[in-house]
C-alpha cells in the first residue's frame, strides 16, 4: 500500500459557536476513488472547503503527498495539483464550454505578457495547443458537440460534465467532486460512474467524492468515510461501511438498511 496522496489529520473548523468539524482524520490513497458521505450538515462540504483552502482549520493539518496544504490560499493549492467541482455549478456562464476549459489549461500553455500584448511570439502556437487539449478534454466527458455553446445555456447534466472537464484541465493529481450526482437521472449517474472510473484507470487520477447518492458511491468507491455531526463515524470498504450500525442510524434513525441497497 503506497503512501496516501491526501492526509487529513485532526481537522477542526468552527463558525462562531458552531463546530462544523471536530477532529476529523482520513487518508486518501493514491489512484483511488474515495467517498465521503453523511447526512446533511455532517460537515462534508466544510471538509472539502478546508482541503481546497477556502477555510482555514482552527486545528489540525492537511497535506498533499507530504506537502502542507492547510493555511495556503486556494489558488496556491490549485497550482499544487488539487482541482474541484462545486455543489452549485460555478461555471463561467458567459464563456463557451471550450473557453471554460481553456482557462484551466492556460497555465500549461503559457506565454508572456509581451506575447499577449503583441500577439506575436509563442501566442499562436500556445493558443492552438491549448485549444486542442481543451477539445480532447471535452471529448473525454462527452461534450464534443457543445464546444461553442455558452456554459450558462447548457442543460444541467452537461454543465456537470463541463465542470469535470474544466477541473481536469488544470492537470490535477487530486480531483475533488462536490455532490456531482445531485440532480442527475439514473442514466446520467451511470454515465458519470463510467467517466470517473475511466479517469482513474487512464489518467491515474485520485478522486475524492462527496455525495449522498448511493448508486454512485457504492458502485465506484474503493473506500468510504462517513461523517456525522462533524465527526468521522466509520471508514472502510463499501461492503463493510454499509453494515455499520452507527452509519445506518445516522441516515435513518433506527430503521432498516435498505437505503444502501443495489
Amino acid at each position, binding site marked *: 500500500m503506497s503512501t496516501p496522496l491526501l492526509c487529513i489529520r485532526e481537522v477542526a473548523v468552527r463558525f462562531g459557536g458552531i463546530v462544523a468539524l471536530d477532529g476529523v482524520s482520513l487518508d486518501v490513497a493514491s489512484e483511488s476513488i474515495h467517498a465521503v458521505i453523511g447526512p446533511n450538515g455532517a460537515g462534508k462540504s466544510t471538509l472539502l472547503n478546508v482541503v*481546497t483552502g*477556502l477555510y482555514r482549520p482552527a486545528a489540525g493539518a492537511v497535506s498533499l503527498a507530504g506537502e502542507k496544504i492547510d493555511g495556503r*490560499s*486556494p*489558488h496556491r493549492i*490549485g*497550482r499544487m495539483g488539487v*482541482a*474541484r467541482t*462545486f455543489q452549485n455549478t*460555478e*461555471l*463561467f*456562464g*458567459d*464563456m463557451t464550454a471550450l*473557453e*471554460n476549459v*481553456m*482557462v*484551466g489549461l*492556460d*497555465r500549461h*500553455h*503559457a*506565454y508572456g*505578457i509581451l*506575447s*499577449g*500584448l*503583441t*500577439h506575436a511570439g509563442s*501566442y499562436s502556437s*500556445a*493558443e492552438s495547443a*491549448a485549444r486542442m487539449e481543451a477539445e480532447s478534454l471535452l471529448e473525454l466527458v462527452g461534450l464534443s458537440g457543445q464546444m461553442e455553446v455558452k456554459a*450558462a445555456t447548457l442543460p444541467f447534466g452537461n454543465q456537470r460534465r463541463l465542470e469535470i472537464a*474544466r*477541473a481536469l*484541465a*488544470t492537470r490535477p493529481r487530486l480531483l475533488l467532486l462536490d455532490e456531482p450526482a445531485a440532480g442527475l437521472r439514473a442514466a446520467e449517474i451511470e454515465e458519470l460512474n463510467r467517466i470517473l472510473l475511466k479517469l482513474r484507470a487512464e489518467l491515474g487520477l485520485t478522486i475524492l467524492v462527496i455525495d449522498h447518492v448511493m448508486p454512485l458511491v457504492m458502485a465506484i468507491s474503493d473506500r468510504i468515510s462517513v461523517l456525522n455531526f462533524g465527526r468521522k463515524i466509520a471508514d472502510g470498504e463499501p461492503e463493510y461501511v454499509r453494515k455499520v450500525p452507527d452509519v445506518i442510524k445516522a441516515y435513518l434513525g433506527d430503521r432498516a438498511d435498505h437505503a444502501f441497497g443495489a
Partner: protein
Amino acid sequence: MRVVAIIVGLALFLIAPQVLPEFRLFQVCLIAATALVVLGQAVVTGFAGQISLAQSAFVGLGGYGAAILTSSWGLPLWIAIPVTAVVVGCVGFVLGQATLRVSGHYLALATMAFSAIVQLALIHWDSLTGGASGMPVPTLQIFGYNFSTGRDLYYIVLPITAVLFVMTANIMHSRFGRGLTALRQSETAAEAMGLDVLRYKAVAFAASGFLGAIGGGLLALLSTYLDPAQFSITQAVYFLAVAVVGGLLSVGGVIASSALFVLLPELLQSFQSYLGLVFALLLLGFVVVRPDGLASVVHIAGFAKGPRSRETP
C-alpha cells in the same frame, strides 16, 4: 478583414490633417486622450469588474507628475510622461491590493477617499504643484521641434492612442483576458483553478493607473495648464460615466462614448449650462435601461458584434 481596417485607418489618419481645420484636429486629440483614460476605467471596472473612482486621481498624477519632472528636474516631456505613467501604474497596483480586503461599495468608498486625498495634496502642496492656482504645462519638445498646435500634437497623440488600444484589445484576447473574464464571472472557481485573483485585480488597477496617467499627460499637453479643481470625485464619476455609456466591455464603445462626451458641449450649443446635467442623465439612463451601453446600440443597428453581456455576480 483586419488588413482592410488597418489600411482604412491609416488612410484616415493621413488624410484628416489635410482636410480638417486646426480646432477639429485639436478635438480629435482630445477625444483620443480622453479615450485612453476611459479605456483604463473600462479595464478595471468593466473587464475586471472592480468599481474604481480613482481614475481622476490617476489623470491628475499623470499630468502633474510629468509637468513637475520637466519643469523642476529638466527631464524632457516625452520621457517624463511615460516614466510618470509607469510610476502611477505602480501606485495603481498598490491601490489594487485593497481588493484583497474589500469589494463593492467599500471599494467605491476607498477609491473615492484616494481621489479626494490626491486632489487635496495637489491643492495644498504649494511648493511642488503651485497650489490652488495650478501650474502651467511646458511645451512638448522633441529634438528641438515644438509641438504646440493641435496639428502638431495630432501626430503624437493619435499613434500613441492607437498602439495602446491595440495592445489592450490584444491582451483581452489572450489567456490573460480569459483569466480576467473568468474571475469576473466566478472568483471562487477561478481561484480554485489556480488563478491568483488578487494579482489579476491589482494588475487591472495598475493598467488603469498607467492608461489614466498617459491620458493625463496627453490631456495636460493639450490644455497647457493644470488646475487641481479638475481632478475631483465629480470628474471620477464623469470618467465612469463615459465608460458605462461606452458599454464597459467594449473597446470600440470606449472610443464612441469618448467622442460623444467630448463633442457634447458643441452639440448642446446654447444649453451649455446644462452640460453636467446631460452627462449625469446619460449615465443614469444607460445604467438603468441599457447596461451594455453604446456598444449594444451599435449592435442593434447591425454594425458590429455586440459585447459580452455582464452577468449577476
